[in-house]
């Protein structure tokens, strides 16, 4: 029906505008570039594991499947990230973020902006509090639990951390990183206990947070609307399985004299490996995406400091910062959305102008 619209599904043309091609004189297809970059990162990690574990001397072969999974993780995350940032919208915002960060104005006017944003936005996630206090609290538990677990386990599986005792069975231990002694501690005191039970503490935090979200996914009608099992529930179940099997390992060691330990260890390992490999492709990818958003914030913050604001051409209402509107118009042109001029009007004026056009040209007086 109606006139034939202009084709908008043309393949991504790299020569859309000179600005877009300046950075990449001979662009490769994103998939090829992503494979190359991801392979390089995975290879780099393998080299880092070998060197960090002092030519595998400190490498714990029992943890080999975990280490292999982290190599796959590095490949997957880098691949997905590279493909993601090659899309016009992400590429442009990311570039603007970095440009702002390294700009002289940023260093001169707002040197603390980035650390502040990292703390409030990525660390304490204040924006989640604006969505819901309960979700913020649960996410904080989940977040800090995962951070703690990652900080402990990744270097351990790579053979970067070692705990050795000069006195045989302890209780005095030394913690070494890359073979260098960092601290000595008594495994019987509080610090020693916390160090050896860090993963149990992390598991408790994660179970509390993920448990709340799972409950919400089953009961809350806002959450259940349009939720997908693979995207919304699997990540929570994975985290809970990892944490519960991890805690059961401690339970087995303390109370069952190691009963069922091998089976539990296998179950734990399978769940961790699955989760690490799944991470780049589902909901967990927000862990990688979210930090990039700090660049967007900095980009807007910096322009607001300089009062580079853009107001609606019709009503004078604030639209956003001027560099942001320019950036969005560029993104729209990249995507062949040739009505980018429309971005200079606020959403309400767009609706009102469409209403006026309908009123005057389609159905006079709405009769």
């Amino acid at each position: 029906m109606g006139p034939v619209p202009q084709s908008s599904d043309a393949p991504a043309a790299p020569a859309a505008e000179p600005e877009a091609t300046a950075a990449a004189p001979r662009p490769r297809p994103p998939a090829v570039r992503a494979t190359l970059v991801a392979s390089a990162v995975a290879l780099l990690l393998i080299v880092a594991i070998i060197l960090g574990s002092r030519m595998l001397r400190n490498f714990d072969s029992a943890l080999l499947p975990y280490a292999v999974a982290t190599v796959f993780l590095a490949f997957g995350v880098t691949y997905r990230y590279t493909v993601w940032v090659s899309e016009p919208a992400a590429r442009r915002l990311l570039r603007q973020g970095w440009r702002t960060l390294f700009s002289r104005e940023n260093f001169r006017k707002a040197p603390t902006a980035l650390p502040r944003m990292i703390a409030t936005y990525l660390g304490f996630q204040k924006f989640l509090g604006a969505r819901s206090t309960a979700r913020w609290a649960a996410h904080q538990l989940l977040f800090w639990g995962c951070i703690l677990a990652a900080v402990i386990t990744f270097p351990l599986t790579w053979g970067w951390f070692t705990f050795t005792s000069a006195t045989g069975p302890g209780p005095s231990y030394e913690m070494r990183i890359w073979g260098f002694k960092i601290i000595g501690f008594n495994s019987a005191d509080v610090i020693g206990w916390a160090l050896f039970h860090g993963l149990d503490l992390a598991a408790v935090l994660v179970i509390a947070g993920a448990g709340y979200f799972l409950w919400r996914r089953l009961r809350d009608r806002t959450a259940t609307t349009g939720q997908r099992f693979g995207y919304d529930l699997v990540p929570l179940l994975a985290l809970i399985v990892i944490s519960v099997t991890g805690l059961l390992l401690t339970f087995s060691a303390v109370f069952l004299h190691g009963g069922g330990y091998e089976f539990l260890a296998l179950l734990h390992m399978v769940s961790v490996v699955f989760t690490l490999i799944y991470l780049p492709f589902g909901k967990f990818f927000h862990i990688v995406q979210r930090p990039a958003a700090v660049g967007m914030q900095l980009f807007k913050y910096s322009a607001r400091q300089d009062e580079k604001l853009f107001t609606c051409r019709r009503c004078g209402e604030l639209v956003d910062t001027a560099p942001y509107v320019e950036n969005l118009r560029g993104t729209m042109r990249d995507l062949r959305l040739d009505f980018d001029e429309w971005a200079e009007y606020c959403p309400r004026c767009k609706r009102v102008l469409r209403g006026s056009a309908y009123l005057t040209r389609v159905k006079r007086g709405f009769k």
Partner: protein
Amino acid sequence: MMGRTIFIDPGRCIGCQACVSACRECDSHRGKSMIHLDYPDEGRSVASLPTVCMHCSDPVAPCAEVCPADAIQVTPDGVVQQADTTRCIGCANCVNACPFGVPKIDLAAKLQMKCDLCYDRTSHGLAPMCATVCPTGALFYGTLEELRTERPGVEVADSFTFGDTVVHTGVAMVVPADKVRWPVPGGLPVIEVNGVDVR
């Protein structure tokens, strides 16, 4: 145009705001209304225009295309969902790129929200909240055949012009049968504002 969709007839809208109130009851954004009710010629005319998400099909969802975080998903049945809460970074690209001025944003929560055709209802065969309560039929939900059974000979448009670009949508608008002009002007280029030439 989607098979079952909303048909908007601004000529029937009396500006009663029933749709605005009902929209708040939608489970996917409880307490917040996503429908817009504007008065294009305020002070001179009682004309009012309800705006729901038009669920653009070609180009597919400009809001999703300009999203840097891949937060806006389009379901296989053509419904453009509101931003995934996990991914949305609150950059407002979608808000300012949408040719129909549909998405809303909560800057403190860094979250975009928009009409998702009451997906919790429409995916189960129920009509969206707004169309359910509209007393005049300005918002009708169903197939074109069902609309024509109620309103014989009615003509609808599902394409809009914005400058040289034509945007085809999943939601359609009623246009006068005697002067079907394809596509419907979307407001760009801006020619006049309330009678004042702004060219």
